[in-house]
Each structure stands twice: as structure tokens, then as C-alpha cells.
């Protein structure tokens, strides 16, 4: 069989064809062991693009000995060496003597432990080491010797163990299995890449072979501008969310989060040291005729003693806690303000009209930063206020909403949320991860929260929210959130990320 050693891909291609004419299949590792990988790949691609050959890439991991492994293959395992020295000393051996005889402290220490474990040696009456068996079989050495000569190991478990002990390393080797293609021939015909007027004139176009178009080619870099991938999927109707700062009242109290709730801990929420405190809720322009005082009073009463059919949390509610400023931990704080505003509007029937609000903006949590947590992330949130709403209607809406993003097969799990009851976590079966993943949260706002705002009893409000980062990370296969949001983003990633079509996989 031909064993060409040429490094020119042109010649190599011819050599491959020649070799293939004599054999059904070739393996690059045995038939072209000395060919450079890049040359081989180029030659194979060139031939396969002409359908002259077919090839398959084989990735293998070949075991090689580490220096320590080589030593063992030569002299025997640590434990065997320890055993041998101990066996030869008829009177037994102290540990110091053993160390002297072997001449290597770590070999002595490791070998001794292992030899004990194998019950090859034991401690005699005077504390000296003595051999417990007459002879041993040094299996480790045998395995390593086999690997050294054949680079194979029949027992995967043994191999894993040797690798764990750092005696063996696995080296990746890529080889190719090659066979004849439908247009197999010994000669490579020159392919025309252009149809010229000359060819038309002399008629050679009739017989010429044309190189097929390569639609997979990347093309020249256009150095384009690009939108950030996180923003590519946005475009809803929005509430004004440009104030990052809320008072405890709007961020927590209005949403039925009691003042002793862990979410109001320094551990979870960013508090503001400057400016110091918020005002009590009040109108900020003269067109704002909403009743803030009654609202404040209702919220306090619901927490402290209960109101609107609720027994409340029954604790000593503190005004000061309610006026502390925080960086908003969810955009629901803004939804609360919008619903309060809705309460003062009148539809044709004199009641607040049905309404739907969306927002998408940054929220803040005082979390330790890691691959999946940032102190800032985006929350997408929506509310639907209407009469006669049912829980099934919310599920139906969520099905439509997520359906637009190509997410189907939703499952709803009962959950807990201070401001919604019922509350449902939304799950979807993720084919890649092969399990249900949580994709959002939803619920119907608590009646005592809505009635505090002055909304009528029969007006029900759906609310739902989801983080934008999580689905985007899954979509773009990003494992570290810092590569998506913040200054550590890779600009090349922004440029190369394809436009999102969430309805396509």
C-alpha cells in the first residue's frame, strides 16, 4: 500500500485517489500516518466537494503515559516497590529505613498506604513493617506496560482510574475514514469557476466542468453595526420605567410584602443612603387627582389589622420602613402605581375601564455575582385588568404569549407570591435539557391589594413576569450572564449574533 509522505495537498489528493483505487476504505492514521493534519483535511475537502470521495472524521482519545506512569512501567508501582523492599528485609523495616531504601519520600508514602490497603504489608509487634504475603502481582505496572506499547486499554474503568491517578493522559487524535464517492476517478478534473465569453465563443462551455457554488462560505467581513441581542426580541407597549428608585411603600408594602419579609433584608435589596427617605405617596403634578392618603391608610390597615376581607399580617407596621428608598427589586412596583392610577379613571359605565400594561426594564438585587446571577437584570412584566377574569384565562393568555416565542406545551404549577393568589409558576419542557424548566411567574393580584387602591371588587388583574436573561442565555447557549449584560460583553458576539426569530429553533 502506498505511503506517501508528501506535504503538498495537491499531490496528497492524487495519492489518496490512487490508494483508494486499490482498497475499499482507507484510514488516514494507518494509510497516511505522516501527512500533516491541515493538508490532509484540505485534500479531503477538495475531493469530497467534487463527490469523488466520502469521508468521515473519527475523534479518538489515545492513552499515553505521564512521566510518573513511565517510571512505574519501568520500575514497578509504588506499592510493589514498597512491598519488595519490605519483603527483602527479613526482620521487618522501620518507616525511616523504608524511606532510605526507596530513596523517594512521596513514593514511600503513597506506596505504603496502598500496600496496606491491598494487605500486602502489615505492622509487626515492634511497629516495624513486615510482608503479609509471599508474592504479589503488580497489576498497575502490567496495565501501564500494555498502554506504553499498544496505546490501548481494554478496561475503561482501569483507564479512568489510571487517569485519575495522573499516570496516564488521554490525547485527542483525529483520523479520517475514507471511501469512494459517486464521482470517484483517478484524475482531478479542472473545474471552471467562471463562465467567460471566450468559453461561449469557442464552445468549450458545453463540456467544461463547473465548480458548484459553495453557499456555506462565510463571505468577506462587512464590519457592520448591530443591535444588542437582548434587545432584538423586544418591542412591546410600555409603562414608564425610567426611575430606578422606589420607596419601600411602592416596592413592598403596596404589594403585600410584609415589613419582616426576608426580601426586605439588607442581604437581598439595595437600600439608598443618599437621598435618605422618600415622601409619603403624593401627586407630582396638578393634573394628578388621585387619592394617595386613603391608599396609604388602606395599605397600612391591611398589613396591620386586615381590611377588605383579609385578616392581614397583624404586626406593628412602621411608617419609617415604608419610606426607606430602595433600588426597585421588580418592575411590579411600577405596575402597582399604574393600577392605582387606573382606579381613578372612569370608563363609559363609570367604572375603571379594562387595561393592559407592559414593561421591560432593569431591576436590581443585592446578590453575589456569579455565572448566573448579576446584581442587575431585565424583567419583562405585564398586567391585564378586566372584569370576570378566570384563572384558565390567564393560562390561555400565557399560552398565546409564549406561543409567539415558539414556546409550547406549558405546564402550570401552584406557587407562592405575596401579591398574587392564586400564583402559578410557568414551566415548559425544554428538549435540549430534557426536563421542565421554569420560564415565568404569573398570578392574579390579591383582592385586598387591589381594593386598597380603590379598584372595584369585581375587577380582577392578571400579572406575570419573566427575566429576559434566562431565555436569552438558553437561546444563545451562553453559560455566563456577564457575557450578555454589562461591560464584559464580547463585542464580536454582539456583531455575530443572528437576529432572533423566536418562532424558529
Amino acid at each position, binding site marked *: 500500500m502506498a505511503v506517501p509522505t508528501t506535504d503538498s495537498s495537491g499531490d496528497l489528493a492524487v495519492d489518496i485517489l490512487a490508494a483508494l483505487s486499490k482498497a475499499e476504505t482507507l484510514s488516514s492514521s494507518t494509510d497516511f500516518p505522516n501527512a500533516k493534519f491541515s493538508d490532509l483535511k484540505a485534500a479531503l475537502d477538495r475531493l469530497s466537494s467534487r463527490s469523488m470521495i466520502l469521508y468521515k472524521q473519527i475523534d479518538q482519545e489515545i492513552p499515553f503515559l505521564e512521566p510518573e506512569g513511565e517510571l512505574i512501567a519501568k520500575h514497578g508501582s509504588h506499592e510493589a516497590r514498597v512491598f519488595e523492599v519490605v519483603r527483602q528485609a527479613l526482620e521487618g523495616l522501620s518507616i525511616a529505613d523504608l524511606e532510605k531504601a526507596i530513596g523517594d519520600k512521596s513514593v514511600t508514602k503513597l506506596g505504603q498506604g496502598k500496600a496496606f490497603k491491598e494487605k500486602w504489608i502489615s505492622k509487626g509487634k515492634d511497629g516495624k513493617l513486615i510482608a503479609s504475603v509471599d508474592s504479589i502481582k503488580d497489576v498497575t505496572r502490567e496495565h501501564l506496560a500494555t498502554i506504553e506499547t499498544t496505546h490501548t486499554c481494554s478496561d475503561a474503568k482501569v483507564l479512568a482510574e489510571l487517569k485519575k491517578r495522573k499516570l496516564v493522559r488521554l490525547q485527542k487524535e483525529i483520523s479520517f475514514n475514507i471511501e469512494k464517492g459517486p464521482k470517484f476517478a483517478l484524475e482531478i478534473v479542472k473545474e471552471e469557476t467562471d463562465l467567460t465569453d471566450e468559453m461561449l465563443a469557442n464552445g468549450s462551455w458545453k463540456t467544461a466542468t463547473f465548480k458548484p457554488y459553495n453557499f456555506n462560505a462565510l463571505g468577506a467581513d462587512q464590519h457592520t453595526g448591530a443591535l444588542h441581542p437582548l434587545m432584538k426580541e423586544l418591542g412591546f*407597549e410600555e409603562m414608564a420605567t425610567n426611575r430606578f428608585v422606589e420607596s419601600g411603600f411602592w416596592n413592598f408594602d403596596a404589594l403585600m410584602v410584609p415589613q419582616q419579609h426576608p426580601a426586605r433584608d439588607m442581604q437581598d435589596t439595595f437600600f439608598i443612603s443618599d437621598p435618605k427617605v422618600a415622601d409619603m405617596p403624593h401627586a407630582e403634578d396638578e393634573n394628578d387627582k388621585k387619592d394617595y392618603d386613603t391608599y396609604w391608610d388602606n395599605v397600612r390597615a391591611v398589613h396591620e389589622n386586615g381590611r377588605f376581607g*383579609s385578616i392581614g399580617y397583624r404586626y406593628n407596621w412602621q411608617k419609617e420602613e415604608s419610606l426607606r428608598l430602595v433600588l426597585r427589586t421588580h418592575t411590579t412596583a411600577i405596575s402597582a402605581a399604574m393600577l392605582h392610577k387606573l382606579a381613578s379613571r372612569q370608563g363609559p359605565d363609570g367604572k375603571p375601564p379594562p387595561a393592559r400594561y407592559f414593561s421591560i426594564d432593569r431591576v436590581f438585587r443585592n446578590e453575589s455575582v456569579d455565572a448566573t446571577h448579576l446584581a*442587575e437584570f431585565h424583567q419583562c412584566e405585564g398586567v391585564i385588568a378586566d372584569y370576570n377574569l378566570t384563572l384558565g384565562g390567564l393560562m390561555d393568555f400565557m399560552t398565546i404569549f409564549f406561543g409567539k416565542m415558539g414556546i409550547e406545551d406549558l405546564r402550570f404549577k401552584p406557587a407562592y407570591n405575596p401579591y398574587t393568589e392564586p400564583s402559578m409558576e410557568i414551566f415548559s419542557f425544554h428538549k435540549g435539557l430534557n426536563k421542565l424548566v421554569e420560564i415565568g411567574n404569573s398570578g392574579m393580584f390579591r383582592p385586598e391589594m387591589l381594593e386598597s387602591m380603590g379598584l372595584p371588587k369585581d375587577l380582577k388583574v392578571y400579572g406575570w413576569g419573566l427575566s429576559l436573561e434566562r431565555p436569552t442565555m438558553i437561546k444563545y447557549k451562553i453559560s455566563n450572564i456577564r457575557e450578555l449584560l454589562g*461591560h464584559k460583553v464580547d463585542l464580536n458576539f454582539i456583531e455575530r449574533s443572528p437576529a432572533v426569530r423566536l418562532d424558529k429553533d
Partner: protein
Amino acid sequence: MPTIGVDKEDFFVALGQRFTADEFQALCFDYGIELDEDTEDDPSRPPEEKPQLKIEVPANRSDLLCFEGLARSLNIFRGKEPTPTYRVLDIPEDQMQYIVVSKETADVRPFVACAILRGVRFTQASYDSFISLQDKLHQNLARQRTLVAIGTHDLDTVQGPFTYEARTPENIRFRPLNQEKEMDGNELMAHLENKHLGRYLHIIRDAPRYPVIYDSKEVVCSLPPIINGDHSKITLNTTNVFIELTATDRTKLEIICNSMVTMFSQYSSEPFTVEPVLIKEANGTTRVTPNLTPHRMEVDVDYINGCCGLDLSPASICQLLERMAYTSRPLGSSIEVFVPPTRPDVLHACDVMEDVAVAYGFNKLPRSLSHKSATVGKPLPINKLGDIVRQECAMAGWLEVMPLILCSHDENFAWLNRHDDGTTAIKLANPKTVEYQVVRTSLLPGLLKTIRDNKIVRLPLKIFETSDIALKDDSLERRVSGIDS
């Protein structure tokens, strides 16, 4: 959300069924809890450790924080077990065990409740669960013992009546739980300083008097919320358990007291009964704890059916409620509902309505969006403008970036050669790192940081951001105005 670990084998025995992984997942999902982990096939589980199920429960359900509560609730949900009637034993007040409260406790830890479980037989597993429930309640509902602290004692080692006092640290002397020697209040503080109990010391450390519970022979039962006395500690052999709870919040005190006794009264010689204790308050009034009277509510049938989109008869609603551990009966156009003492999270009719939906099955509810009102959608003008600017920038060859809104004080001021006159930037009180000191007053720091981290990228480099900054504004309620930059 708290995660509860239960012995898998024992748990399936308690449920009377060996579930497959999928079956158990489905049960959890329907009930609203989550199987976090099954350690059976976890290679890192030590061989001597029995396989565990780690179950995440909702933060409001104190009745699911232990093996006993989880198994009981799931059995009631599956119709395998009736809801027990939790009962306070009928003992005349003059024969009750009692505790006398001294008025000084009002300044440091004003509320106390007690209860006794008689004839308990602990196994190692139920004993561990008992200890673990206290721990879970301390961490979650009791907010690291600030609101409520629980002490449990072997009643046979102490002698009532008890007193709840507040004494100066020098005047309290006892051998704390699992400690070698006696110490006074001050020595105890110093001794526990760097131990794991050290994190609770701040709750009373600076108070002039510390709360203490004594028996009639001056034996210290506990120094709440820090530590119990060693003398009265409970063991596997304890049969009569004295539970005392002290608190700064009366509602939480009752919730946690009821949680302890409803969960573990199942081991009383007469299951689900608790012996009451009379509390003689400093002002001369008395009350009896625990109070296990169910909370009575009337819930409109139409309200439940309306929210669920169902048309159930009152009787079938009652059947569903039974599976969620309520006692109920039809009452005209309403349902009379008795909320068990295990469910302090039920505040409003909506909580009952949700439980009807859970028992019915969320995923079985009729899905039609029955009522659709037409509403007009509209983008916020400023955000629409922002989108136009973004599109134009991108089309002109600029890359959009999204740096963080929080940054360090230096990044926002000194490094831009800007001076902080104290009138613009919002400063954070409790950042974990220097990177989160202020809310940006300019988009520049983020853009510059993005360039710093992308020096490897080929030039020319053109980046942009359209987003918000925030500035202090004392004229507004939240003292802040947002500016679109």
C-alpha cells in the same frame, strides 16, 4: 424557598406507595412543591447515608417544613388520610401548668407562649425531625430568632410553675446546653462570640436585662433567643416535652407555636392532642396557650366558581377543600370554611379559592379566555424614540452595548475628572462590592469600561447605548428623576 430533606424510604412508607421518579415529580408539581433532588443515584452520597428526597416548599407554608407535615399534607391531598382534629386537652385552669410573666420582660422580649406534649415516643428519625423543624422555623418565619425563639425541654427534669423574667446578665447563672461549666450572662456572651450561636447575640446583647425562663427551683430552662439550659435538655428518651416560645411579634409567636404542636402532637400518647399552659401576665390577666381554634371564614360559591371558571356545586367544593385539609360545609350561597391551625397563610377568601383550584388541578381548569375586552396598545413615546435612535445607530455601523447601571463612585466621578457636589448621584447603602456604589449619572463609565474589556477587538471600534440615568431630585416623592440619555 426552604428545602426539606426527607428519608426517601421512610417517606414512601409514610405515603404508603413506592413512587417512580416521574410519579413523584407529578404529585409534587400538582400540589405546588418541587422535588429538587433525589440523592439515591447521586455518586457523591456517602454509602452510609440513606437516600434522601430534597423537596422545595413555598415560603408561606410553615406546615410543610418537616417530614411529618409533608407526609400528612400529601396523604390528605391524595385522600389517604383524614384531616386530624388538633385538640387542646380540656384541663381546668387551676390544674394547668402555668408560667408567671414579670413586667421587665416587656422591654426586651414581651411575648411568651407554652405548650406540653405528653407521652411522646421519639425515634432517632422523629427526634431529628423535631430538632430540624425548630431550626427551619428559627431561620425562616422567626427571622433568625429575632421575632420568635423556641425552647424545648424534658418536662420531667424540671418542676413547674415556671417564671418568665428579665434579669441583669450578672444575675443569671447556669450551665448552657452542651457546655462544660456554669457561666453568667456576660460570660455566656463572651463565650459564644465566635461560635455558630454568635450571630444571635446581637438580639439582646446590649439590653440591660436578658430574658430568662426559670422553673420553680430556679433552674434555668432557657435564655432566649440564645440558648437553652443543659439541665432540661430533651433526649431520645424524653416523653413529656415542655415547649416555650418567646417573641417580639405576637402573631408570629402564635403561628410558630401552632406549627410546633400541630406537627409533633401526632406522637403524643393521644395523637394530635396538646396540653395547655396558663400564661399569667404581669398585668394580672391570664390566657391559655396554644390556641388551636380553626379560623372561620365564609367564602362565596360564585366567587370560587367565577375565578376558577368552574361551575361546581357547594358540596363538591367542600370535597375539594377536604383534600386541602380544610373542614367546610355549604351555607346558603356560601361555604363555611374552617381553616386549620396549620394554615396561618390563609388570610382571605382568595387563598381558599386557590386551594380549590389546586385540588381541582391547575392544568385541568377550563382554558378559554372567556372575556376579552379590547384595549389599545401603545408604546411609550420616549421608548419609541429610543428604538428609532437605536435602529439608526446600528444601521450606521455602531454596535449596541448594555453596560450595568450601577458603578463605582470613582468610575462615575474621579476617573472622568468630575467632581461630586453631592446633588446628582444616588448612593447605595449596602453594596457587596465597590462596583455597585452609585447609580450612574452618565452613560460614559459603562461605555469606557466596555472598551477596556474589549481592547482585543479590531479597530475601528464604534459602540453606543441608549438608556436611562438617574439623578437626585428632592422635589419628587421618590427623590429621583430618571433621564433618558
